């Protein structure tokens, strides 16, 4: 599902990743952790090809991402759902439209897109906010809309960048439960977080990124 081989990434001579080697199998639930600024977001961006590695190979869903032609990027990105740290919601669209918008561009007919969007919102307890615009939502609600958008088209791979950063403990637990459900249904889930409480809540494989390398790979706590 995901394979990184000797991946290096540097910005202005600052080495963020220095020879990362990992493999994630289909259906795995994996945490990626490490201190703030260690390169967790960069790691995820390499997976959805928002960044190219300085060197090394990145494979996602049987596609080599590091030298993927630009015109093939959409087809890679359609195989994954990304929950962004900064949500990336469309301010001019309602909550429901933020989700149907993506579904429609995935070729799903309007009625079915609306049905799926509504069901996903309901699953996240946001159905009563479907007509609201993002600016009228709290940080937690915005984060749940971003999660709903990533889940709505049922991707095989979910990449989540600090998905519980704006949620209280109860909502964070609900979200993790949701991600576990999705993982149980067969999707691969990779969650980047620095929240140790979150890591301890679910016994899953954890990758610890430190000084640009994977310093630990196993169940957390060690």
């Amino acid at each position, binding site marked *: 599902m995901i394979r990184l081989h000797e991946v290096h990434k540097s910005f202005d001579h600052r080495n963020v990743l220095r020879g990362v080697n990992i493999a994630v199998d289909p259906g795995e639930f994996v945490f990626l952790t490490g201190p703030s600024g260690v390169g967790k977001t960069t790691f995820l961006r390499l997976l959805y*090809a928002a960044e190219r590695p300085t060197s090394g190979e990145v494979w996602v869903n049987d596609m080599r991402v590091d030298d993927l032609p630009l*015109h093939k*990027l*959409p087809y890679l*990105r359609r195989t994954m759902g990304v929950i962004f740290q900064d949500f990336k*919601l*469309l301010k*001019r669209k309602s909550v429901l439209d933020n989700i149907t918008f*993506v579904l429609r*561009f995935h070729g799903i007919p309007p009625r079915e897109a609306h049905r799926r969007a509504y069901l996903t919102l309901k699953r996240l307890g946001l159905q009563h906010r479907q007509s609201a615009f993002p600016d009228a939502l709290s940080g937690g609600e915005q984060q749940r809309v971003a999660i709903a958008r990533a889940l709505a088209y049922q991707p095989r791979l979910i990449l989540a960048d600090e998905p519980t950063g704006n949620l209280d403990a109860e909502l964070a637990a609900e979200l993790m439960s949701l991600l576990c459900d999705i993982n149980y249904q067969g999707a691969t889930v990779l969650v980047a977080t620095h929240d140790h409480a979150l890591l301890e809540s679910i016994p899953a494989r954890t990758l610890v990124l430190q000084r640009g390398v994977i310093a630990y790979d196993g169940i957390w706590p060690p």
Partner: protein
Amino acid sequence: MMRQIVSEGWGILRSRAGVSIALALALAVPLALGGFAVVVERWLAPLVATEAHAEPVQVLLRPDATGQRLQKWVDEQHSAHPKWQIEVVPPEKLADRLSQWFPYFRRIMDRNSLEIMPPLVEIVAPNPSALAGLENNPAVLAVGPRSNLGVLLRSALTRVRLVLGMTSLLLFAAAGLLAAVWVHLEMYRHADEITVMRLVGTTEGAVRGPFLVVVGATGVLAGAVSSGLTHLLTIWSSGVLGILGLRPPVVPWWLSVVQVVAAVALPTAAAAITLARHATFGIEE
């Protein structure tokens, strides 16, 4: 997918209705001018075709150039200029011809014998200005006007076409540039949407599609407005020409089609180039 592209395009169009209408007008004015130039040209064309026939230049000879002398002079000119068609004006038509130059000649000729009048020949030459050389001929008293109304009209028409065409072209190019700049600005305005569209796997066509829909719809509006303006200009000029007793100009049926096609094609091409240059898939989002 197509419905979604159209729907997104419609959303942009609705949110920027004022700018879209201004852009449509900016496109419509040069197209209407160009269309009216076509109408004027088609109206003038038969007139120019009629008048474009080479007109004879009248050459008045000395009164003693009659009989054999006249024939000899004609033969000399024929051999020197084989392409000239030289015709001696018969005495009975002399009064008509000469009175064109001097109206009082008719009265003189009515009272006197035609024999007192100098002979007149009419020469049709491929290049009438070449007849100026005859002014130095000892047998020639005068050479008539060598300019041709058809030539003048054609020259005037060429200038009118050039001015209207260049003006339309410049305005049209400016409107195309305006469309490209507008698309560029809209892309910045919708940068967040474009970023999200790309991150969730939207294809390049779907990213660019809504902008092309907006520009295409604006082009259709511009085409319709330009066609309407051309018709209005034609109706107005028909009124003016009607007062002068001239036949009215007509807008050809295909002109509206050409105007709409041009109004859609130019901004769409400008938008497509702008999108290709500035909305390519960046790796850095």
